[in-house]
């Protein structure tokens, strides 16, 4: 994927980079005000993907959340819920203040894993890993059966692709020729308690998806221009092959002391460390724009 192909999209890419920077900023802010643990590591690895989806790729309208023609998004890695809530809030679905003020509290609609009943703006209740892709297959089958042309997009963590149900769904998607289904994998190469390849041999990872009959797109999951390119490369929804976008990412991306650090699978930030985290985020942005 070359930048050349997206010459006309420099502004779009710059806009999305601003959004994802603000999204990370808000995530850290919440991690500093909420007293319980936030899955900040996997939130930060998914932040650019959720940005490109909610602010570029998905055809959704915050003012019309039940429109049958909308794209469906399934957050299979449900523990990144707060990253999705904030990405959606920045798109106008929810109020960010509502999230940061009530997150995790009794009777809040915003908690550790998304709940469709309490928060109708999300498409699907998830949290138990390995469940999202089968549900997305069902949604994609339904769309095709009804002759609708919207897409179903599902974000998985690489760790959860250890679950057999993911591969059962992968097989079903190809068997049913679901070209309207796109999976994104946040390949941050960390599970909760170990680095992925230490315990589970995921590699050769793209080959596994290809062997199940999926078209595979590989991107740097923190390079907005590549993420935009992946969205632009989605096949027509009437095609017969599902697509997976494997996003190479870094757990904790943007905050140096959280990056690739097992300790920061989840946690909470005190005042001094919140300041340190925000400084790290800001300096990482300067570094990257040089």
């Amino acid at each position: 994927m070359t930048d050349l192909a997206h010459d006309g999209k420099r502004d779009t890419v710059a806009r999305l980079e601003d959004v994802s920077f603000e999204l990370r900023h808000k995530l850290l802010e919440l991690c500093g005000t909420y007293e319980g643990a936030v899955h900040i590591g996997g939130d930060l690895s998914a932040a650019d993907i959720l940005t490109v989806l909610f602010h570029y790729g998905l055809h959704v309208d915050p003012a019309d959340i039940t429109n049958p023609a909308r794209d469906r998004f399934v957050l299979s890695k449900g523990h990144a819920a707060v990253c999705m809530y904030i990405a959606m809030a920045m798109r106008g679905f929810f109020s960010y203040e509502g999230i940061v003020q009530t997150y995790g509290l009794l009777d809040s609609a915003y908690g550790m894993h998304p709940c469709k009943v309490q928060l109708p703006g999300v498409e699907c209740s998830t949290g138990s890993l390995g469940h999202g892709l089968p549900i997305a297959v069902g949604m994609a089958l339904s769309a095709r059966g009804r002759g609708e042309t919207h897409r179903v997009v599902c974000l998985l963590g690489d760790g959860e692709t250890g679950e057999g149900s993911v591969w059962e769904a992968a097989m079903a998607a190809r068997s049913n020729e679901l070209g309207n289904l796109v999976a994104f994998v946040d390949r941050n190469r960390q599970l909760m308690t170990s680095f992925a390849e230490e315990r589970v041999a995921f590699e050769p990872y793209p080959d596994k998806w290809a062997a199940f009959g999926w078209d595979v797109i590989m991107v740097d999951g923190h390079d907005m221009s590549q993420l935009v390119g992946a969205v632009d490369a989605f096949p027509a929804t009437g095609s017969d092959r599902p697509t997976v976008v494997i996003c190479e990412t870094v757990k904790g991306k943007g905050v140096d002391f959280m990056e690739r650090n097992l300790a920061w699978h989840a946690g909470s930030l005190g005042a001094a460390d919140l300041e340190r985290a925000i400084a790290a985020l800001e300096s990482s942005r300067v570094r990257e724009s040089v």
Partner: protein
Amino acid sequence: MPETFTFGEILSARSVIGSTLAELGAQYPELWVLTPDIGATLVEFRDTFPDRFLDVGLAEQVCVGIASGLAYDGNIPVVSGMLPFLSMRALEQVRSDVCYPNLPVKIIGTHGGLVGNGGSTHYAVEDLALMCALTNMTVTSIGDPLMVGEILRQSMTMTGPLYIRLAVGKKDMVLYGPGEHKVRIGTGIVARPGTDATIFTHGTVVAQALQAANELAKDGRAVRVIDMFTLKPIDEELIVRCALETDGRFVVLEDHLAYGGLASRIADVLADRGVRLNSFERLGIPQVYAGFGEDEQLRDKYGYGLAATIAATRRAIAAGA
């Protein structure tokens, strides 16, 4: 303002499960420990016996299946994880690969009840109903961290499968002094004597039942508390004895669906034995998928918190009196 804390602190923390398994690993060379990426408390065992430790990643079904294979070959596998996933996703493996051949696989895990603030995907609220339904399965729910070690020790010589339910573990307080009660699987513990009514309970809410009994003692009520930490096989004789000795006034308190858990098992015993009560109060989770909140807030919200326990016990004592 919150303090900084990380998952890494949980990773490095010692736990009763971790240290007991490490101790038993030395004693039983056939002991294996398996986990689907929930190995935070198993570090000691993992580092001491790396050849008998297996983290399969996020894959509960294969974790239990492998445990079955190990047990067929004479090993003693302990599967440690989060109960919502072990009790439901791996249920058929537990039933057909462990219980059916009656293998000595132990399943131990956390997140039994409305604990941990993860929302309903992360609360095991029907696990005891599911596990009690399985032929050959022994089912326990433990509230006292020291008891966890004792049960694990006893389990090493058990011939069939065992389920051990915990809440979150680290927040549970020590209920009993060392040697205060003889801990034997299948025998309920009289955690507090009394003759006006009995509260039957298990797991993390035993502490709440004791607190309720303390409050009621201020009004001169002597409420018995039974820690029925073994749900299966259930201590039938103790249930019948409590009916006789506490005027047939029962309260059942559990962090589990109010129907399908301990209350249902006690009701079965009473019906089967023809025992009639004066009152029977069930305190547990109603038919809801609970939302977010801290453990105590959720228990209050869904009607089985401390105040509700005190009120229900008063009702039980007053009924028909």
